[in-house]
């Protein structure tokens, strides 16, 4: 191991093929050093734009036509251009052109904005040190190796290594708000050897190279080393690297920083890359429906082509004397003719797959997602932020969630830590509000040495920063507000709580100054410790350590961490007492940490130093080597004691979880915490109830029995229960009260379960058994989880045979993997930074907002998009099927039934807006009902509105309506006069009649489905009908110049002037709507769904309100309030209530 660690020093360059060498100030290395291999780096130009002026049209078109739908319409359009088709190319070309143009303009505009932004950034001035002078240049001219000067409140123009700072301790403060949303100030450190530089000349004289890894997007990772010639090498880490996009704060200027990554290679630019697209279940079923319709389309075309040739077998039918072909056509080969006919039929029926559906769906998703961001109830006053939508593609998926995976800390709980107590060698210290030593409740038998060490350990072993009040601006106002002198800031709230707890116990951490940590002890004396090393916290080790040198010259290693990671490394101390206390605290739901220390001798310290430096110097696998070094150093501890910090449950967390349960979702808590702590939180948040039978699948248990036995035993328990309650459950419906199971599993056992499967796939399929158990548990708690394990669990459930829709919610960086893995990832804008929120699909301020997000927004979006998809297919069946039927009466000649204008505008304007609006504002039940009754969510579970039977119903309804339209018109038209002056109508009047009935029926069908009539609905529905009438009047009202046919001239007016036409339109509309109404009414009366019941109950409620109001109103002397006029009644109700309140 030792040899391995010492390798990088000598091996160096040969191995690092994927590292880069940066020559500071572009100076050639001195002779004797390794050869200067010129490497080419991009300039500092940021290009976030996708297109240039020249490639915009081809590139954009290419990207748009890569979408299968657009491509399909392009093909149809081209077919229309090439062959002689029934409809002019305009009918499909115009909508396609419209869609493509709108998208192109939108993307072009966005790209222009990006160009502008790029430009302003690339041209912003930057100060560079050249030949010992500060020269002002433009940002995009920066090259790798340039030395840059940055002043306060300026943003860094590229990724820089901090050489020296105006602060004499060589640090600078930076806020990375625009990078990761964390507005706290972070400290960055100058390179040790150069931090003394003060002037340009000094900086310019620096002769050194930096070796570092090639650019990679991880913001928090950087490995490199600086090689100052004829001197020594020094490691560089993320703490030396200033990232482009971050802003310098509280530091006058920093000198001589050197650019390492420029332009598109900066970490910020690398982070532009968008995440992989998630597709919703609705989209999948939509695509399935599309394929069905494509098959229908092709089969229609094939049927018609075959029939055409069967029908025109006799030449008298093929070419009667009155209707000859042209010579050209006659000479064409039979096969080509048949193929052309097939294509022509395809073109004629192609509207069955509407281009507008894609546009409408996208508009619906895009516009609809604004309702989430606008929602006032999801706005958090304290945070000053509302919900965020990062992907609108998944709106409807929110209504389909079956599994919720939630993080505990910061998600279920506040992550607002409060120090409760500490325990030193079994003695408990509880700080009270006043900071007086005598108030501390001290048990006798205190070992003072340990006590002192314990408090010092907690004061020293942390990464907390002290902020003076006046220097802080723009920092989160939280619990610290109002402290006059100073307060603590840390990335971990636990640490702040601990340090503040220590303050209340009399030990105040003052500041870190010149690597000396200053502590004010309870005797008001300042103690100084030299901070030698910080062994940072990571979630794998689950502990952190510091090595300090006390004023007496002692080397001390303090360590604090989770009990499981400390206890195995303890050699002495009162383990039993502390352990007992820790467990007791954990049961109460407190977060516990253990504190231990180790005295290091000079030689031990030197060795530790050696390990650490070596690991830090390594360019490759630095993480791994550091971990190894830590592992070597952190051992042989003496246990000091333990702390307990309370993390309060978030507001309404229990209520939210209960609602999710009622809504039929399975809630899993995935946490890194201890089992006891986590279980206590679960009970508090009602994830587990008193009645819940807890099944444990933990390391403790598997140590006693084999994993195999435990699994099978649990499975038996669960199955037995299910067979008993199975019958019950069916009869009672979905009663939540029946006995349910809760499962607790820990990380170790989980990996055993998953690994066992991999090793011997055949014998015992633990994975299946485990899933079977989980399926029957309403709540599962996974504790001791590593971040990657969280994602593994989500993946496991996702891949199980029901393919349930999963949702992951979390707030910290450790939840990102699971957020990315789940179907829907929700980030909480928490205290642990913005990583989760940035990587999520939706971000909400608090856990409680999940309830509204799923139960209200998710539910609404789902029913909206479901109706949108079904309705679109329905209305196009209605539209195209009459054309299909007409072929049987026009000799399969591809004669269109409707005029070109109607064909083109049907989907674009006559029937597009009502459904778009419906899909934006429909509320089949009120929001209050949805929130009050979460079980309504079950009504739409499993994609219930888009399943095949429903789809079949809609399609059949469409076919039925189409048959009514066509044959209704056929029988009315058959051989009779329609007008009172004896004149006859032609084929265009026939088509217009069918089309009018079609437009009205289809719009009124939507009106029947609308449960929420706002004035916009009225406006759009009646408006689009009116628009159709006005358009038709206009279209037929003039002889249109530039058109080579005038077939629609006065057709619509003539039709309207005929009485029977009116009567038949009314009749046909009534008949077409009748079956749907009957189906609705019968379903509602015979077997109402929960939703329908809720609607009626709501109705009754209003009714009784109205009745009560009637009395009231009649007493007030107002009369004639109709019982059925709910809306009016409601308005009056509100009016009265408000007046009462005012009184």
């Amino acid at each position, binding site marked *: 191991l030792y040899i391995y660690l010492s390798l990088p020093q000598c091996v160096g360059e040969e191995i690092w093929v994927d590292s880069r060498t940066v020559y500071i100030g572009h100076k050639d290395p001195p002779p004797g050093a390794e050869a200067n291999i010129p490497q080419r780096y991009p300039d500092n130009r940021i290009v976030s734009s996708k297109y240039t002026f020249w490639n915009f049209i081809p590139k954009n078109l290419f990207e748009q036509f890569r979408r299968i739908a657009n491509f399909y319409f392009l093909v149809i359009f081209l077919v229309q251009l090439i062959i002689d088709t029934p409809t002019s190319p305009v009918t499909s070309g115009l909508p396609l052109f419209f869609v493509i143009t709108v998208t192109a303009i939108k993307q072009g505009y966005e790209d222009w904005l990006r160009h502008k932004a790029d430009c302003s950034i690339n041209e912003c001035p930057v100060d560079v040190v050249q030949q010992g002078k500060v020269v002002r240049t433009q940002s995009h001219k920066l090259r790798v190796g340039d030395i840059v000067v940055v002043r306060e409140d300026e943003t860094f123009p590229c990724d820089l290594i901090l050489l020296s700072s105006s602060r004499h301790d060589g640090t600078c403060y930076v806020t990375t708000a625009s990078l990761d949303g964390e507005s706290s100030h972070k400290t960055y450190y100058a390179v040790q050897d150069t931090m003394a530089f003060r002037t340009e000349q000094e900086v310019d004289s620096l002769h050194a190279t930096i070796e570092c890894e090639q650019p990679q997007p991880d913001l928090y990772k950087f490995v490199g080393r600086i090689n100052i010639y004829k001197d020594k090498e020094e490691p560089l880490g993320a703490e030396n690297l200033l990232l482009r996009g971050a802003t310098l704060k509280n530091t006058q200027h920093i000198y001589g920083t050197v650019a390492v990554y420029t332009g598109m290679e900066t970490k910020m630019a690398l982070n532009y890359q968008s995440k992989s697209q998630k597709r919703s279940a609705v989209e999948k079923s939509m695509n399935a429906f599309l394929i069905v319709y494509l098959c229908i389309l092709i089969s229609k075309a094939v049927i018609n082509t075959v029939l055409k040739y069967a029908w025109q077998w006799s030449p*008298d039918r093929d070419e009667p004397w009155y209707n000859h072909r042209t010579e050209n056509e006659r000479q064409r080969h039979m096969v080509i003719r048949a193929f052309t006919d097939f294509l022509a039929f395809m073109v004629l029926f192609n509207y069955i797959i509407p281009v507008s559906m894609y546009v409408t769906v996208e508009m619906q998703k*895009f516009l609809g997602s604004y309702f989430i961001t606008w*929602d006032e109830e999801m706005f958090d006053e304290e945070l000053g932020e509302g919900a965020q939508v990062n992907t609108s593609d998944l709106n409807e998926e929110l209504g389909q969630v079956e599994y919720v995976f939630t993080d505990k800390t910061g998600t279920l709980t506040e992550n607002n830590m409060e120090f409760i107590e500490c325990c030193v060698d079994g003695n408990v210290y509880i700080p009270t509000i006043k900071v007086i030593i005598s108030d501390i409740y001290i048990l006798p038998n205190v070992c003072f040495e340990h006590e002192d060490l314990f408090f010092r350990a907690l004061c020293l072993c942390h990464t907390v920063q002290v902020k003076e009040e006046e220097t802080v601006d723009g920092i989160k106002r939280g619990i610290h507000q109002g402290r006059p002198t100073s307060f603590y800031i840390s990335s971990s709230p636990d640490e702040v709580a601990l340090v503040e707890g220590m303050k209340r116990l009399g030990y105040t951490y003052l500041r870190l100054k010149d690597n000396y940590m200053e502590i004010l002890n309870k005797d008001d004396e300042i103690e100084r410790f030299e901070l030698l090393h910080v062994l940072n916290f990571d979630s794998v080790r689950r502990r952190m350590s510091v090595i300090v040198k006390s004023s007496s010259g002692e080397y001390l290693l303090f360590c604090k961490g989770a009990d499981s990671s400390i206890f195995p490394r303890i050699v002495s101390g009162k383990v039993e007492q502390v352990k007992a206390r820790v467990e007791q605290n954990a049961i109460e739901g407190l977060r516990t940490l253990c504190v231990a220390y180790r005295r290091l001798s000079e030689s031990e310290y030197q060795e530790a130093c050696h390990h650490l430096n070596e690991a830090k110097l390594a360019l490759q696998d630095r993480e791994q080597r550091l971990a190894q070094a830590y592992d070597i150093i952190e051992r042989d501890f003496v246990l000091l004691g333990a702390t307990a910090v309370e993390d309060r449950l978030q507001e309404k967390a229990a209520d939210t979880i209960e609602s999710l349960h009622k809504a039929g979702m399975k809630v899993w808590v995935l946490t890194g915490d201890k089992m006891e702590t986590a279980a206590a939180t679960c009970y508090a948040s009602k994830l587990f109830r008193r009645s819940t039978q807890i099944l444990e699948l933990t390391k403790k248990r598997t140590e006693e029995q084999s994993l195999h036995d435990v699994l099978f035993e649990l499975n038996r328990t669960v199955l037995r229960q299910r067979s008993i309650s199975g019958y019950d459950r069916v009869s009672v419906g979905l009663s939540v009260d029946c006995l349910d199971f809760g499962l607790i599993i820990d990380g170790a056992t989980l990996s055993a379960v998953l690994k066992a499967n991999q090793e011997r796939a055949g014998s015992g399929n633990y994975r299946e058994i485990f899933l079977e158990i989980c399926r029957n548990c309403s709540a599962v708690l996974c504790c001791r989880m590593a971040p990657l394990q969280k994602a593994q669990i989500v993946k496991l459930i996702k891949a199980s045979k029901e393919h349930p829709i999963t949702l992951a919610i979390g707030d910290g960086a450790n939840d990102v993997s699971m957020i990315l893995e789940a179907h829907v990832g929700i980030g909480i804008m928490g205290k642990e930074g913005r990583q989760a929120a940035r990587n999520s699909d939706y971000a909400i301020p608090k856990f409680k907002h999940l309830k509204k997000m799923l139960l209200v927004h998710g539910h609404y979006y789902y029913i909206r998009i479901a109706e949108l998809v079904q309705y679109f297919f329905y209305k196009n069946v209605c539209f195209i099927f009459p054309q299909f039927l007409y072929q049987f009466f026009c000799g399969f000649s591809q004669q269109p039934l409707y005029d070109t204008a109607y064909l083109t505008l049907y989907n674009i304007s006559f029937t597009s807006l009502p459904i778009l609006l419906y899909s934006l504002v429909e509320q089949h039940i009120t*929001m209050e009902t949805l929130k009050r009754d979460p079980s309504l969510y079950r009504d739409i579970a499993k994609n219930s509105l888009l399943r095949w039977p429903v789809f079949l119903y809609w399609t059949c309804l469409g076919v039925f309506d189409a048959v009514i339209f066509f044959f209704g018109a056929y029988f009315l*038209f058959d051989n009779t006069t329609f007008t009172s002056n004896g004149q006859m109508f032609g084929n265009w009047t026939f088509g217009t009649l069918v089309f009018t009935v079609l437009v009205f029926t289809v719009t009124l069908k939507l009106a029947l489905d609308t449960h929420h009539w706002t004035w916009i609905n009225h406006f759009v529905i009646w408006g689009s009908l009116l628009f159709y009438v006005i358009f038709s009047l206009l279209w037929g009202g003039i002889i249109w110049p530039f058109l080579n046919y*005038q077939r629609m001239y006065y057709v619509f007016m003539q039709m309207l002037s005929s009485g029977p036409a009116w009567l038949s339109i009314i009749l046909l509309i009534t008949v077409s709507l009748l079956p749907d109404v009957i189906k*609705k*009414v019968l379903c509602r*009366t015979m077997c109402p769904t929960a939703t329908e019941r809720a609607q009626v109950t709501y109705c009754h409620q209003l009714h009784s309100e109205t009745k009560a109001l009637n009395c009231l109103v009649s007493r007030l002397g107002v009369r004639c309030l109709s019982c059925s006029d709910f809306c009016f009644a409601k308005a009056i109700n509100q009016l009265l209530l408000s007046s009462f309140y005012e009184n």
Partner: protein
Amino acid sequence: MMASSYNAKDEDGHITVSGPGGGTLRSKKPENTAFKQQRLPAWQPILTAGTVLPAFFIIGLLFIPIGIGLFVTSNNIKEFEVDYTGVDMSSPCFNCSQNFSWNSTKPCTCTIPFYLDQPYESNVYVYYGLSNFYQNHRRYVKSRDDSQLNGDVNSLMSPSKECEPYAFHENKPIAPCGAIANSMFNDTLELFYNDPNGTRIPIPLNTTGIAWWTDKHVKFGNPGGNNPNLTAAFQGTTKPVNWRRPVYELDADPGNNGFINEDFIVWMRTAALPTFRKLYRIINKKSSMVPTLPRGNYTLEVVYNYPVRSFEGRKRVILSTISWMGGKNPFLGIAYITVGSVCFFLGVVLLIIHHKCGNRNNSADISN
């Protein structure tokens, strides 16, 4: 996809310069408007048996009387139809239909006697009907040039490509071009009343008023506007192949000649279905005292020009009176009566269901 591309812009964190905390706080707070909070006042109707019931009854009660009215009106319309194709040996037109040739110069005439057992009181409309004639065939429908028919001189001399193969004949443009015009119905029908005392009285047939007013006056027009000399206006064109006379000799009346000949206009409005009828003549009522067509024997004289046997077509003549709702059409009345009754019946069924289930539901609600 739209949203994701918008987000790309948002992710460009360096563009937005974050302002001081207070300012962003206020602007981020969503507006509390009814629309944004999805709380617009709304009417929330629900289709329950209770609410639909009245509608069904109302529809039933409205539709049944309308249907009865329509049915009665339709039954009062008198219509007489005679097929003169000449398929049967016994048919008077059998010979004409057998000996048909496009080149025959001598017209073949046949006479069909018929008897009207009821007097036709009001105006009588004479239709000719064709069966199995696909006027709605796509190749046929588009084979016309509307601008030529509108009197456009350019189109007159160079007809649209759509007219092919009926656009040019012997290198001269055809006027009117296209398959529709070429196949114009050219049988001549004459009607005689056989007086009981043996004389044949010709019945005057009105040739105008059979086409749509807008068609005659706006959509169709002769080249050269109101130029009375149509022969000159059509100079340089040739008649459609199957026509016996050029277009400017369709009628002696200059107001009904050329493209604005009403028979021609009627023919040019293509029928929707392969069996169709077109208005041929109108017999106007002379006085209120005498029926337009009294009961008795009539003779139909047909100049048999139009061949339909080749495609198994049929030719008919229809005499019909007209009411406010057009010609005889029992279907509409029957449909109204049926739909009305069905609605009424459904209303009753729903009433029963509502009565039973409503009670059940209410009790369920109470127990809940």
